[in-house]
């Protein structure tokens, strides 16, 4: 029996065990929506396509499954761009299906036509424009395979309307054959053996663990490695929550707003074990002074990351989980504590600190949140100062507990990403932490949250300013604050009420102490507007062009 390509598409998604799609309909994608009418797959109607793609991203990060997005051509597709770029930068597996004008109209500047594959070419792992309906099932099969294997990432399929309506004999391929795509999973044995030898010889090792640990869900292996060789662990933003925040070997985040202990440990180490991390400029600071005396072992699934920014002594291309599983039995337990004593001395000398007294402090709210949730909530942040305070003060005890836009640093990510995570983890405590700026970029999704009865908790650290940019103007532009102070905000508590969401406004420490636990314990969605001091700076901070050992206090 023949079915339309659109119907085949939906059957392919069912075969891929897709349970949830985030999307927004329109003219050219109508055939797909018609096919969805008869499917068991749940479609979440968002309020803006950016919300759909960030939600799919949050869902994918929270569950490890593929996030699926459907949107129409033209404006539907362009509204996705930020979210696709975000997923690409942070290596999140997404499959995105966009409608396109009919093939006969492609290239004529037709109504709602944009060159979607052209626009998304540099921000997708791969993309397809479907020209032959019979090829669609194979493309979907490939898309899921490409999105999830090797270094994960978004894959887009652009589907012209006439193709979607073409009847085909449906047959979902069992296997993938892509001669140009052969990701490496297993690390090279000899290299792993060499790594074990180098580790045995080192006196001052540091483990630098990034998003690769998070994506491959290798927290257990990371913990085993650290405890076996008794080495301190520092995380990148994407790596945070992969190592217990209260573990004695944990140094906190490194880099631009990293702890001094982490940055000093890296600067003075004799061996840097980089796991699923990419030596990003926010991490390394002045690159020539990044771990200057260290031998470098770099494990990454993407060969192009190895040697891209720093010279590497032992490169290992492979899935970090598999590599660690092979490496662990080759290691001997180490008990030497000289290096750890030095690290502890730094830690004691340079703790993270802020002044608790006075106006309500954003850091205090984060610390309190960590205390109430025991560090086990899934926290999705937006981008800005509050994001860094979550990174610094929320002691994560749940692997995969942090969902944050790192590579792109896209404001507006927090709310929809938290929403997606809550869809994926219905029984868990999911908390959004956003600034007052970023929250207003995607707050239209409050409607989606209510409609779907999500028990999401949303905390706004409301300082009435674009705090992070204001901090940059303080440090680099002599405090000439331009376009960073808001003169108007809606009353967020009342805004919440307008949506039927319970709203809180917290102004003091005492209110946080008594009301935050209560708000978090509510069964339904809650918005918690915390009016916090605008006079706080994310500290320490590595000035532009400086080594990470040269951080200043802000």
């Amino acid at each position, binding site marked *: 029996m023949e079915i339309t390509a659109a119907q085949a598409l939906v059957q392919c998604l069912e075969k891929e065990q897709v349970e949830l799609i985030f999307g927004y309909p329109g003219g050219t994608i109508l055939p797909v929506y018609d096919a969805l009418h008869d499917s068991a797959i749940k479609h979440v109607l968002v309020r803006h396509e950016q919300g759909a793609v960030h939600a799919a991203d949050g869902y994918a990060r929270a569950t490890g499954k593929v996030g699926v997005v459907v949107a129409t051509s033209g404006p539907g597709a362009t509204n996705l761009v930020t979210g696709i770029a975000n997923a690409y930068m942070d290596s999140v597996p997404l499959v995105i299906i966009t409608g396109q004008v009919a093939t006969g109209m492609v290239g004529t500047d037709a109504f709602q036509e944009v060159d979607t594959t052209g626009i998304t070419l540099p921000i997708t792992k791969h993309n397809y424009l479907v020209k032959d309906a019979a090829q669609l099932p194979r493309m979907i099969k490939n898309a899921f395979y490409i999105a999830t294997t090797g270094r994960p990432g978004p894959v887009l399929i652009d589907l012209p309307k006439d193709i979607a309506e073409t009847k085909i004999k449906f047959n979902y391929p069992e296997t993938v054959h892509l001669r140009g*795509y052969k990701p490496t999973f297993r690390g090279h044995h000899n290299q792993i053996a060499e790594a074990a030898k180098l580790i045995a010889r080192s006196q001052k090792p540091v483990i630098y663990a990034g998003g690769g640990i998070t994506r491959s869900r290798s927290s257990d292996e990371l913990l085993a490695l650290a405890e076996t060789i008794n080495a301190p662990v520092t995380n990148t933003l994407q790596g945070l929550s992969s190592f217990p925040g209260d573990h004695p070997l944990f140094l906190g985040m490194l880099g631009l707003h990293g702890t001094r202990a982490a940055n000093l440990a890296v600067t003075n180490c004799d061996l840097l074990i980089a796991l699923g991390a990419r030596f990003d400029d926010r991490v390394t600071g002045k690159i020539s002074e990044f771990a200057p005396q260290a031998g470098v072992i770099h494990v990454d699934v993407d060969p192009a990351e*190895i040697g891209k920014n720093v010279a590497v002594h032992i490169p290992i291309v492979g899935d970090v989980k598999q590599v660690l599983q092979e490496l662990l039995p080759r290691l001997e337990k180490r008990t030497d504590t000289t290096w750890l004593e030095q690290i502890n001395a730094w830690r004691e000398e340079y703790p993270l600190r802020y002044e608790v007294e006075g106006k309500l402090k954003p850091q205090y709210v984060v610390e309190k949140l960590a205390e109430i949730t025991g560090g086990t909530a899934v926290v999705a942040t937006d981008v800005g100062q509050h994001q860094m305070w979550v990174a610094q003060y929320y002691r994560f005890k749940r692997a995969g507990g942090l969902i944050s836009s790192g590579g792109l640093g896209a404001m507006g990510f927090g709310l929809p990403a938290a929403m997606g995570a809550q869809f994926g983890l219905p029984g868990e405590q999911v908390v959004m932490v956003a600034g007052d700026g970023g929250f207003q970029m995607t707050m239209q999704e409050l409607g989606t949250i209510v409609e779907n009865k999500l028990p999401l908790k949303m905390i706004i650290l409301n300082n009435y300013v674009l705090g992070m940019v204001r901090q940059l103007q303080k440090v680099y532009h002599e405090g000439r604050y331009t376009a960073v102070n808001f003169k108007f905000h809606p009353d967020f508590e009342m805004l919440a009420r307008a949506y039927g969401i319970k709203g809180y406004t917290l102004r003091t420490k005492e209110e946080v102490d008594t009301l935050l636990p209560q708000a978090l314990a509510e069964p339904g969605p809650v918005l918690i507007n915390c009016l916090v001091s605008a006079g706080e700076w994310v500290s320490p901070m590595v000035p532009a062009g400086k080594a990470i050992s040269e951080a200043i206090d802000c």
Partner: protein
Amino acid sequence: MLHTLAVLVENSPGVLTRVAGLFSRRGFNIDSLAVGRTEDPEVSRMTIVVDGDDRVLEQVTKQLHKLVDVIKINDITADEYVDRELVLIKVNADHTQRVEVIQICDVFRARIVDMGRKTLTLECTGNHGKINALEETLRPYGIKELVRTGKIAMVRGTKNTGYQENGAKEESL
């Protein structure tokens, strides 16, 4: 330093854009790029001449490998290879210069493919150096128009830089 890469790609729509886009996006310098189909109609071959040191070349190769449509990459710079480029040159040649230009043609084994009242159009194939030399020699006469195909290359002997089924993607590490 100039490197010559023989790159096998899927003959799929947009593959040239993907490769060219990668080079511009990452700031790699292409000296020349020639593309056409191979013995297998589903596979095209690009000969890309890139400028860069070893580190740049390593990144070029690795980033190219990440493109799903790229099947195989060989840096043949250090190999013995045959390379050819085709050039068409329309050069000024009125009756006072015609004989000289025709003599130059003979020396370079170029062929005259068209003749105007005051111009001659030549065709010549050869390696990069030969084509450059021809161009320089003709420049004083006044080159009206010139087009080069970019270099194509093939390794000498039995070594194969083509695509074999089951042949794994070249590992660069």
